[in-house]
């Protein structure tokens, strides 16, 4: 690999995922390929030359290259995400560099069992792992624990339902922290040690653990898993800012 430099992608599709999130698919002729879990830096330049950069996780699996999909959460007072989620249209160009990061990465040959813990839009890099798992035909035992505020805030809800039906050895456990519909059978509270004790693989199975979400969420989940006896070296974390925009 060499130094990362900025490249231009063309928006070929956009898709609303929830009220606050949108997926943006880019065609990147110069893309060198990526691994599930990596991210890109996006740079916007204003007419006066002012530039703002933010990191966004890649949601699509490596198998879809040179097309790359990002899922972006709109932060109302953000400098970058309102433009990406509201103004960017198919045919527009976007400047980015990547893929970044070989630390928070899972590839099918790394095996499992796999424990994925997502808070809000922290699902995005973990979804790349699940999509890669499906595309590679992997049957690695995988559990996703996904915390959202409400059912309407669940990103990729229908695709997760579909993956669950079409995959073997995949389990999805959801918790809704603010509002849940009548008859909800999942968890209805924030992630804590007891919840992780019930959901995480037993320590003896030595799962590979990936946690992504807002900083307090990641720190709570990681500390609880260490408390349960999981090796810190098998727990990989990726934080995004309290505003959700990194």
């Amino acid at each position: 690999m060499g130094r990362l430099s900025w490249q231009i992608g063309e928006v070929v599709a956009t898709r609303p995922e929830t009220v606050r999130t949108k997926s943006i698919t880019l065609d990147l002729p110069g893309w060198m390929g990526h691994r599930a879990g990596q991210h890109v830096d996006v740079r916007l330049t204003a007419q006066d030359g002012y530039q703002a950069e933010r990191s966004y996780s890649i949601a699509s699996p490596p198998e879809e290259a040179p097309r790359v999909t990002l899922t972006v959460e709109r932060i109302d007072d953000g400098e970058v995400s309102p433009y990406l989620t509201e103004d960017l249209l198919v045919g527009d160009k976007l400047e980015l560099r990547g893929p970044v990061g070989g630390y928070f990465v899972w590839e099918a040959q790394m095996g499992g069992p796999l424990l994925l813990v997502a808070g809000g839009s922290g699902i995005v890099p973990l979804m790349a792992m699940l999509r890669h798992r499906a595309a590679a035909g992997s049957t690695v035992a995988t559990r996703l624990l996904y915390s959202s505020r409400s059912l309407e805030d669940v990103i990729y809800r229908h695709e997760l339902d579909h993956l669950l039906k079409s995959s073997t050895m995949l389990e999805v456990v959801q918790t809704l922290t603010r509002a849940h519909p009548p008859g909800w059978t999942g968890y209805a509270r924030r992630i804590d040690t007891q919840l992780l004790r019930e959901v995480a693989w037993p320590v003896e199975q030595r799962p590979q653990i990936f946690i992504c979400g807002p900083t307090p969420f990641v720190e709570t989940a990681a500390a609880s898993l260490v408390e349960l006896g999981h090796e810190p070296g098998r727990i990989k974390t990726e934080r995004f800012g309290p505003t959700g925009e990194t």
Partner: protein
Amino acid sequence: MEQKLDGNAAAGMLQAIFPFDMTLAQVTCAGCGTTTVIGATAAYMHGMGAIIRCPRCDNALIHIVHARGRYWLDMRSVRVLEIKEG
């Protein structure tokens, strides 16, 4: 405003400088001697760059500033930076 993230967030900037995957580079803290991969450090992002801190003792390992077409790296608290080729 600074945001506490992790070394992954600063990796794009580091990889614009170094031609390697910097999330897997290892830093040894001159303060407490802990060795960590940069992906597992704490990083505080600000408008002009980032501060990478030791996850054990919170010592500031690397200050990166990017402005006016230059990068500045203050690495006074890094005893060793080990970078894996390829």
